[in-house]
Every structure is written in C-alpha cells, then in structure tokens.
C-alpha cells in the first residue's frame, strides 16, 4: 500500500512545505495584482534585493564598496561588526518601504492608465535595475544568511515516523502561515485593508470616494516588499543568497496560474498543489524520464489545468464583452 510507505509521506510533506514557500512568493504577486492590476515580474528580484540588504546590514558591509574602490580608489569593505538580526530586519524593511515609494513615484506614477502589458514590461525593466543595483551595492558573491532559524532534520519526526524533514522548512511554513493569517486579518479588519480591497475592486470608484491611489499603491508595494523580505529570508537561509534566488519568481508563476491571479487562498492552495505535485512527479515518474523534471512540471500542470479552467482555481470568472 502506497499510503503506508514512509517515503510517500516524506515526499508528500516536503512537497507541502516547498509549496508553502512557493505560495509565499505567489502571495506577493497576488497582492500587487489585486490592488493595481500590475503583474509584478520583479517580485523575485525584490526578494533577492531584500535578502541581500539584510545580509549586508547583518554583516556590516559597506554598500557600493566595489564601485567606490573602482572609481575613487577608496578601499573599504566593512564599517563594523554588523548589527543584531532584529535591527537588520527592521532596517531592511525600511529599505523595502523606501524602495516601494521610489517605484511608485518613478515607475508607476507616469504609467497610470497604460495597458497591463506595458506595466508588465516596466516591471521587467525594474527587475533588471534592482538586480544590477543589488549586485552593485552588495557584491554578487554567494552569501550565507543566518537569522537564527533552527537547522538540520527534525529529530522528533525522524525518531517517531522515520521521515526526514528539515526543521528550516517547518519553521518557514509556520512563518508563512502567520504572515498569510495576519495579511488576511489586515485586509479584512483595518481601515487601510478596506481601502485596499476597494481599490482592488474598482479604481475609479475608490478614487471617487477619496481614496488616494498613490498611497494605496505605496502601501501595497511595501507589503509585497515585506513578503519579499520574508520569502528572501526563508529561501536565502535554505540555499544561500545569490542570483538564483530571483528565479523563485518563475516558480511562483505556475502557482498563480493555477490559483488565479486575484485570489489569496488560490495562491496558497495552488502553491501546495504545485509543491506536492512536482515532488511526487519527480519521485515516482522522474527517474523514468531522466529526472530534473521540477523545472517544467509545474508549468505543464498549470498549462493543462488552464486548458479546462482558464481563470484558474479561484480566479474571477472571465466575462468578455465586445
């Protein structure tokens, strides 16, 4: 029986946990898409940028050290021993909020009322800029990120069930759940949350009752900056902070397709489905066809799924008029 096979459960649970991580990135997309109709391709790079900034603050790196050396011949690398993790996290959050403000002012404000595809392209441009700035500020080498999360396999599960599950993944899942719950509470029960939902519903109507679009966008981009920071911390702690971190955005896209671009529960359930599906496929079918199927399985799954349900699992029904 497959259900009594500990390997099955190990694969299943590690799939679920990976799915939570995907959902975390997808969440950042959904928040921005709902509030501004922008498909934010830069979400992955935002996560990379946030993680780089965090490591930079933590270890006390001097930003643009390499550039300063090349241009002015000034050789500085560190300004001290760094700072405690909590302070670094807070500072990085401030950086992300400032970045959100800059993005809204410089990129989005002049592009109001453009077609969605133009805004999408603009975020691709943004991704390039952020990637370059991040590398230029903090250097492109792989960095270790340690925020004090537990590591290694969970002994409890290993002893009792024989399953090999990373502690880090469990804590990531817990953090993600807390984040999702608090975002839901925020959007349901606060004034700002209500304004966000109003904007998501109808821009013009929201404007006409006196909600400032620009402020809302700033808030939304700051929140997805926060989500990016959390995602960056989790993925960075798992596999080091490096360029490939920004590719997790590509992992989140099929999740979005599956769950629908406008649904927060969709992002979570889509993430879990993709996480489990891709681990299962890789484990049971992967060896037959050469392995490394994780790169495309999620996309194929989402593609086939969309053929039958074009708006995704929880997306709004697409109604078209001429």
């Amino acid at each position: 029986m497959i259900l009594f096979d500990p390997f099955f459960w190990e694969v299943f649970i590690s799939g679920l946990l990976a799915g939570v991580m995907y959902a975390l990135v997808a969440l950042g997309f959904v928040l921005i898409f709902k509030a501004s109709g922008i498909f934010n391709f830069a979400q992955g790079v935002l996560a990379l940028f946030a993680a780089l900034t965090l490591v930079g603050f933590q270890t006390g790196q001097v930003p643009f050290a390499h550039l300063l050396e090349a241009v002015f011949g000034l050789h500085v690398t560190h300004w001290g021993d760094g700072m405690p993790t909590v302070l670094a996290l807070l500072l990085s959050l401030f950086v992300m909020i400032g970045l959100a403000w800059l993005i809204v002012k410089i990129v989005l404000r002049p592009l109001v009322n453009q077609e969605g595809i133009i805004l999408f392209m603009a975020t691709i441009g943004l991704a390039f800029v952020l990637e370059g700035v991040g590398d230029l500020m903090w250097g492109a080498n792989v960095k270790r990120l340690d925020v004090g999360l537990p590591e290694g396999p969970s002994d409890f599960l290993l002893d009792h069930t024989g399953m090999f599950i990373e502690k880090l993944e469990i804590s990531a899942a817990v953090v993600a759940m807390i984040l999702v719950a608090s975002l839901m509470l925020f959007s349901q029960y606060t004034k700002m949350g209500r304004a966000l939902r109003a904007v998501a519903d109808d821009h013009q109507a929201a404007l006409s009752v006196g909600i400032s679009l620009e402020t809302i966008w700033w808030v939304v981009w700051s929140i997805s900056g926060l989500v990016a920071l959390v995602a960056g911390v989790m993925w960075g702690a798992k596999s080091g902070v490096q360029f490939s971190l920004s590719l997790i955005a590509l992992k989140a896209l099929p999740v979005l397709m599956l769950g629908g671009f406008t649904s927060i529960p969709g992002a979570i359930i889509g993430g879990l489905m993709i996480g489990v599906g891709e681990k299962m496929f890789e484990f049971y079918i992967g060896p037959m066809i050469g392995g490394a199927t994780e790169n495309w399985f999620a996309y194929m799954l989402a593609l086939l799924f969309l053929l039958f349900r074009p708006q995704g699992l929880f997306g709004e029904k697409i109604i078209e008029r001429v």
Partner: protein
Amino acid sequence: MIYREAGDFKTTYKADQETFPIRLDKVGFWLSVLIVVFVIPLFLNDYWEKAVFLPFFIYAIAAIGLNILTGYCGQVSLGTGGFMAVGAYSSYKLMTSFPNLDMFVVIICSGIVTAFVGILFGIPSLRIKGFYLAVATLASQFFLVWLFNKWEWTYNYSATGQITAPERDFLGVVVTGAYSAPWATYLFCFGFLFIFGWMARNLVRGHIGRSWMAIRDMDIAAEIIGVNPLKAKLSAFAISSFYIGVAGALYFSVWLGAAEPTEAFSIDKSFDVLFMIIIGGLGSMTGSIIGAAFIVLLPVVFKTVLVGLLGWPTDIAEFTQIILIGSLIIFFLIKEPHGIAALWRTLKQKLRLWPFPY
C-alpha cells in the same frame, strides 16, 4: 524641403500600400542595402562579424518573428528561447544526418520543424489569454530546454551534451564551422534577414496579417465579423516560430558554432527578444530591426566605453549595464510606450512639415 510630398495624391491602392511612400526613404533604403551587401564585407573583420553583425541580423530575424506573434497577433510569448533551441537542434540533426544537404535547405527545414512545435504550443492560446498565456508559454521554454538536456538522440549521444556545428556550405561557400570566412557568414545571415523581412512585411499587410491584427485588437469582435481565431492564432504561432526557428538555427550553426541548451537558450534569450520588440515598437517591422540593433549594440558599446575607455572592472561594468538597460526600458515605456519606431514616425512627420510647425 527635400523630405516632403506636395500633397496626398494617391490614386491607386497600390500607391497607398507602398512601404516607402517617400522617394527619399526608398532611395535611402536601397542605398543602405547596397552598402551593407557590397561595401561592408570588404572591410569586415572577425570581431565586427562575431560581435556586431551576426548577432544583429540573427536577433533581428527572431525579433521579426516574435513581433508577428506578439505585436501583430497580440499573443505574448516568453518561449522564444525554447523555440530557438528547437531550430538549433533540428539544424544540428539535419547537418549531421545529411552531410551533403545545402545549408540553406537545412536552415529552412529547421524553421519548418520549429513551426510545427510552435503550433503545438500555440494550442493553449485558443483558451488562455493575456498574462495567463504569457506564463503558459514559459512551459514551452522550460520543457524544451529540459528535453534537449535529457534526450540524448538530439545531441547524437555526445558525452558533453554539447552540440558542435560541422563544416557545411551554401552553394559551395563554407558558412559554418571554424573556417568560414567572415564575409560569407555575414552575407548568408543578411540574406535571410532581407528575404524574411521582406516576406514578413508583405504578410502583415495582406489578408493574413489583417486577420492577426483583428484578433489582436479585439478577438471576440474579430470572431463575430468572420475571422477564424483558430486559423489566425495558430498561423501566427506557426509563422512566428518558423522565423524564430530560422534565427535559432543561424544562431547555433553560423554564429556560435557550438551550443549547450541551458546556457545558450536560457530564458534570458526570451526576454532579450521581447525587449527588442518592446523597445523597437510592437507591431512594426522597422521597430523589430531597430530594437535588435539597440539590444545587441548597447552591451557592446557599454563594454567598450566602461571597460575599454574608463578601465572599470568587468563585473562593475556588467552590473552598470544591467541597470542602464533596465532604466532605458522603463524610460522608453514612460516616454513612448509604442517604441522607437513610433518616435521615428513622429520625427518623420515633423520632417515633412519642416520648417513649419503644422
């Protein structure tokens, strides 16, 4: 004074449909073609061939292909890298299986193979639209690159997984392999660009191109007035993939000479080509070519200036280059969402009226 018609005196549809209605444009175009064909090859060296002209021509073909799909038919695709890989690998298989086949035939056949793959991956476009489709085309990108990594038959079971172009000729002139002369590869690629640019220009102003544009502007309305969306969308996918396949085949066999799927056909290629058509102008032939020139030449210029003249370390120059390209994309989108081609049109309009404001 020179750049001006005296008025709009067109009396035939033929005159109205002309690509270059102003004589100065027409003369200028043919003059530059003559210079490109007869003058530049005389002074061409290896560096200019490999770093500037070949990538420019090849990317221009790919950009025209993607522009047919995205700019004219409105289907955003992020699978260009994957389709280029199909073109490259089919040209490799053809070159190694039929050593006597002329290079021209090889390239065209690779394009046809890619067209079929394109139709296959275009089928979802009948149900999925917009961003969903853009993301769905990523499936082709990742799946195809994975396929060429894992399916040994495609790279003839070579131990490294790399494909290397053997020496083949076009009408007796060697155009691939290490011993090809710069002028030969240069003219070979330019020939493709010229023929396919001309074909595309005529396709998009004909019946099929109009049905693409109808689908792009509003698919439901187009369907109601009798445009068959199945035919229009799939033909756009087929023709666009054909172009991209041809570009991919040239990219591997003539320009690079050797390729390995993960690096050479990564998703960056898809984005590069997409940037070309956005910066150049969606739905414009001139735009595709200007965009290709822009994206290909920009890194060369930056590298020459930052590394060569200012003596910056290469990594900093590279980051600066990424930042600059990103900012330029944003800048162009803000200033002129319709690309350089639209700027060029405005400029032409101004020139026609000069020295009067209107």
